[in-house]
């Protein structure tokens, strides 16, 4: 027993093994280290010399101590030492671990898991049977050995609701008469029947209550008013002053979830609620999907925003050009007036509007759309858009939806429309008929003074009756609607301005737009709107505040959802019904977090330090470490670990980064000082050595024949090496070389853009034409797919590569294929009369692609002999010579650019010189 700490052993009898240690001392001492074998010619002089000291070399004492320590640590580790902060009183009998298991436990779940683990370990040691009960999902009590529960702790994670009255009543009746000790993991919040439950547990035996002291931090649903979002935070633990950070999550333009904004809320000591405003641009605000409190994980600290923060985005489109001074006649004027106070209105051409993905698109008197726009619009509607169309002179005059129903029109139209009550027509202008029961406008009061003078008229069709949602007093349809996919198309048979009717002038117009969900999001809907609706969960929150997919769950009736009584059937989350979104959150605006006041007789434990520390792992690890040290020490004693052998290794290991850096720097310096050709290291030993030999041959040729005097070539590793020092990189393509990483591609593209050249060689023109399906060709396509390569063409006869140094028309390597591709000439390059070649592009082609296996033709051995056969006889020698000439031309092209192309200007220069 150490003062204040108690050290115990699970298997104390194993400590007997410590008595064997002195024996080990004797055994180990007797064994001498193994001899070293040395080659030594002077042995002949040693023959016959005896050792003076015949006693064996003994193992050094410190090595013995090391080994004995290792063994002692092993024995102690196996004996299972346990370090407990205080004497734990072992008890008998079954124990019941109760967890509140509601969202309020989410923040403290990590700590609770630790406490649970400690408790279960203790019970395992005491051999007690344990049952676990989560009050949010009570099940029949099963008393099992504690070890069986330990692996199941994660299954008792908090649920996104609090314990419910009816479940608790069942629990109380179920435990009646049983006897056990209760350990209650409490979240500290008050709820009905907690007191009753406590009584029931106390009847069964003693009760220990654990509270982690973390408490609950809850975020209420955000409210949006006057351009700012108001967020209210509550906390249950008010003893400390504290600052919480609220995060607004949403999708960025690329569609990834990220934190869009954050704001701090400061709590003074004793303060339970905090409030903060968050003003964001409309575009950003509309993207917010949820708010959360940083470093808190419960369903209460996460709140989904649903539609509440969104203003509907309405795109207004008209075909009529702006006519100055006739503002009141504009088809959009009244719409704009009606929409602007409560929606974000955008105007412009349809092609510009669609990518913004507005909620509503209003087509005011637009008849004809292009095919592409129409297809895009249909797709947009089917994905849930609302297309609102207004009639007008153009629509009436057009042929749209005459014979067959147009996909973007709810009905077929009769030719010309009609006018009533005009100077040349019979009858009076018509009033509106009361809205029928199935209409979304049902219940709206129709002012008496609305008169319709002109309209377009629907063709009677079998489907017409279903699609009419408003009609005139004589029964002709005024507003028709068609559902398409998840969206709908609505047609007002009158204009959006006051030309054809008085409707846009009335308040009814705004109300109708509102009912069509043009204006308002759903969250403000009154209770009546929930009646008879079924809401499909899209996302749900779990007890730890994590958002999970809810599409697989069954729908929830609107009445149930509006009551916000969460349970296994109704989870908090995001729900959808008919294109409207509703966020159901744990925290109501008026819910207050009330801590539960435990009676005096109950002791509430923190539970944090009740844990017994098992030291066996530490002792076993110590033993292993000592044994590892012993390995090194033994080698050292026996002389096998000789300093001269190991020290360089250690030094090398320590110096590797610096040495690498220094070498890298040196290499860069060398490459920058002289022209150096480079080849890509493919990982294929044979190909790499061939490329190296080939570039060496080419470098020698350049040295002998031209003023370019390159240094020996180098291989570059695309992943690590800087490329910009090398004017030409030869890249032999092998099917099995690794795909470069993103960084490597970035460097390669930078290299190509800054004037470098890569010579791709598929090395297979003997069997495959370039670009065909050979393995190398396919690999080349994969490699080059992410390179920034301009359009290519087969090397034209007048390309500057044909004359940068030698005059060439063929570019053979080991194979002689004419398929060599370079950057295409600009389309406007024209041959000037009397000139042998076109006035071609400036600059250097960034890539040359072919399959002639040039490196093999260039390759020379250290003795200056060719390494690979090319062709046969003198023809072969000629081909190798042409290959070298191509290489020289290539390097000259890289180094001098289009210098030889400038010859086109020679006549002009001569002319200017007066020759």
């Amino acid at each position, binding site marked *: 027993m150490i003062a204040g700490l108690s050290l115990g052993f699970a298997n104390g009898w194993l400590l007997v093994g410590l008595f064997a240690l002195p024996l080990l001392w004797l055994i180990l001492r007797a064994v001498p280290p193994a001899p070293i074998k040395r*080659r*030594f*010619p002077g*042995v002949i002089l040693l023959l016959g010399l005896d050792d003076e*000291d015949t006693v064996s070399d003994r193992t050094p004492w410190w090595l013995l101590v090391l080994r004995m320590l290792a063994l002692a640590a092993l024995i102690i580790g196996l004996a299972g030492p346990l370090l407990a902060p205080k004497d734990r009183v072992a008890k008998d009998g079954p124990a019941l671990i109760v967890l509140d298991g509601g969202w309020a436990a989410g923040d403290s779940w990590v700590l609770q898991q630790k406490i649970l683990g400690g408790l279960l370990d203790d019970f395992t040691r005491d051999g007690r049977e344990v049952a676990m009960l989560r009050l949010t999902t009570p099940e029949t009590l099963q008393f099992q050995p504690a070890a069986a529960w330990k692996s199941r702790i994660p299954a008792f994670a908090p649920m996104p609701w609090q314990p419910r009255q009816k479940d608790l009543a069942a629990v109380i009746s179920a435990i009646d008469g049983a006897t056990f000790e209760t350990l209650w993991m409490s979240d500290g919040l008050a709820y009905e029947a907690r007191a009753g439950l406590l009584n029931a547990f106390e009847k069964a035996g003693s009760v220990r209550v654990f509270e982690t002291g973390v408490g609950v931090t809850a975020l209420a649903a955000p409210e949006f008013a006057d351009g700012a979002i108001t967020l209210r935070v509550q906390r249950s633990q008010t003893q400390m002053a504290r600052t919480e950070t609220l995060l607004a999550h949403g999708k960025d333009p690329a569609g990834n979830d990220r934190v869009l904004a954050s704001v701090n809320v400061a709590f003074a000591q004793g303060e339970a609620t905090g409030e903060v405003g968050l003003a964001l641009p409309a575009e950003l605000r509309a993207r917010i999907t949820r708010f959360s409190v940083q470093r808190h994980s419960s369903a209460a600290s996460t709140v989904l925003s649903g539609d509440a923060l969104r203003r509907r985005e309405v795109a207004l489109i008209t075909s009529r050009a702006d006519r100055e001074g006739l503002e009141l006649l504009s088809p959009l004027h009244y719409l704009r007036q009606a929409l602007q106070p409560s929606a974000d209105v955008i105007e412009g051409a349809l092609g510009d509007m669609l990518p913004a993905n507005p909620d509503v698109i209003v087509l005011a008197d637009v008849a004809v759309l292009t095919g592409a726009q129409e297809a895009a619009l249909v797709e947009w509607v089917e994905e849930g858009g609302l297309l609102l169309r207004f009639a007008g002179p153009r629509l009436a005059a057009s042929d749209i939806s005459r014979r067959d129903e147009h996909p973007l029109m709810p009905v077929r139209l009769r030719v010309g429309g009609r006018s009533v009550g005009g100077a040349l027509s019979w009858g009076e202008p018509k009033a509106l008929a009361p809205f029928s029961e199935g209409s979304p406008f049902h219940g709206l009061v129709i002012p008496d003074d609305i008169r319709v003078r002109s309209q377009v008229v629907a063709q009677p069709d079998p489907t017409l009756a279903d699609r009419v949602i408003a009609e005139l007093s004589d029964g002709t349809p005024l507003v028709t609607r068609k559902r398409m996919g998840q969206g709908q198309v609505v047609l007002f048979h009158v204009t959006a301005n006051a030309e054809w009717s008085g409707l846009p002038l009335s308040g009814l117009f705004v109300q109708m737009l509102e009912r069509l969900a043009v204006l308002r999001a759903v969250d403000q809907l009154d209770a009546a709107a929930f009646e008879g609706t079924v809401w499909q969960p899209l996302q749900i929150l779990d007890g730890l505040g994590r958002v999970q997919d809810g599409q697989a769950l069954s729908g929830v009736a609107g009445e149930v959802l509006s009551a916000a009584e969460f349970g296994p059937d109704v989870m908090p989350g995001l729900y959808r019904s008919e294109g409207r979104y509703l966020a159901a959150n744990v925290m109501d605006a008026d819910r207050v977090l009330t801590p539960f006041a435990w009676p005096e007789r109950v002791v509430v434990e923190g539970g944090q330090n009740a844990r017994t520390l098992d030291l066996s792992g530490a002792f076993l690890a110590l033993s292993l470490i000592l044994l590892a040290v012993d390995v090194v020490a033994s080698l050292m004693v026996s002389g096998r670990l000789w300093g001269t052998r190991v020290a360089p290794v250690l030094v090398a290991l320590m110096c590797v980064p610096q040495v690498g850096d220094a070498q890298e720097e040196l290499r860069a310096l060398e490459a920058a000082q002289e022209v150096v050709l480079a080849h890509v290291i493919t990982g294929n030993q044979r190909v790499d050595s061939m490329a190296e030999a080939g570039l060496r041959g080419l470098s020698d040729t350049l040295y002998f024949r031209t003023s370019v005097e390159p240094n020996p070539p180098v291989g570059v590793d695309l992943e690590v090496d800087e490329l910009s020092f090398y004017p030409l990189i030869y890249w032999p393509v092998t099917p099995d070389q690794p795909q470069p990483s993103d960084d490597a591609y970035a460097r390669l593209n930078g290299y190509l853009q800054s004037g470098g050249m890569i010579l791709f060689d598929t090395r297979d023109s003997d069997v495959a034409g370039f670009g065909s399906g050979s393995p190398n060709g396919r690999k080349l396509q994969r490699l080059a797919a992410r390179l920034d390569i301009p359009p290519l063409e087969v090397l034209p006869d007048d390309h500057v590569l044909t004359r940068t140094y030698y005059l060439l028309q063929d570019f053979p390597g080991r194979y002689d294929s004419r398929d060599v591709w370079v950057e295409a000439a600009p389309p406007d390059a024209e041959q000037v009369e009397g000139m042998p070649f076109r006035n071609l592009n400036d600059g250097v082609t960034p890539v040359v692609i072919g399959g002639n296996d040039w490196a093999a033709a260039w390759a020379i051995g250290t003795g*200056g002999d060719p390494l690979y056969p090319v062709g046969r006889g003198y023809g072969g020698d000629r081909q190798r010579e042409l290959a070298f000439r191509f290489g020289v031309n290539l390097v000259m092209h890289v180094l001098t650019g289009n210098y030889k192309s400038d010859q086109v200007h020679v006549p002009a220069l001569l002319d200017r010189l007066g020759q």
Partner: protein
Amino acid sequence: MTNAPSRHTSKLRSRAEAEAARLPPLLAQAEQMAGTVLLGDHGRRRAGMGDDFWQYRPVQTGDSYRMIDWRRSARSDAQYVREREWQVAQSVMLWLDQGASMQFASDEALPSKMMRARVLALAVSILLVRAGERVGLTGNRLPPRRGEAQIARLTEAFLNEDASAAEGEYAAPDARAMLPHARAVFVSDFLGDIDGIWGALTKAADRGVRGVLLQVLDPSEESFPFQGRTVFQSIGGGLSHETRKAGDLRDRYMTRLAERRDALDQLCRRTGWQFHSHTTGQSAQSALLWLYRALEQSR
């Protein structure tokens, strides 16, 4: 490169180059070392058979007309005979220990004893050949001859691995076919059986041959820097000695080595030879100088 050599020539050439590749380093090293030694006097400083001009002297009776140097005589009334310096070529017989023990080098930075011995022998051969002597190997393999070509032959013979493979752990000097009154150079570590050395040396001395013994040792053989439990093995693996404390053997080893040196020195003094001990840790230059001077004195 422009015109690729045809297949056959390139093959032949590459083989020749591969063969030749082994020679240059040794030869070059030896040449370089030989070049640093100032060549001493070659001639006998008296008229006789030789290539170099010595003096013009008036015709004496008994001289045949053929001997008159007409060009010199035409410039005066008397007749002159051109005399050449008397040059006598000595024969120097080399023996290089090709035994396995010579292949030892205690450190990678040090050359093996064999390598050092070859370089020294070849360098001294070059000097001797330049001085007009005839150099060869003891035994029947390479009799002494003059001229630069002999150096190439010697180089090849030194590098002949078959010969070294034929030797055992420790080789004994080969004193067969010694020319009478020739000079001899024996280079070895002289760690082997002293009776063999005794026999060869006395046999050579009987024929009037005098020369030098150059003992080449590795620094570790001089200092014996070993500790702890060790099994010593000869290079061929034929001999081995195990000790528990190598450090304790040091003094006795050194004593034995000194005894061996003394014995060799005694033997040399008795036969009129000269003895020198050289370690591969020292510069080869000093050994070469000693070797050259020793040969000059005995010449």
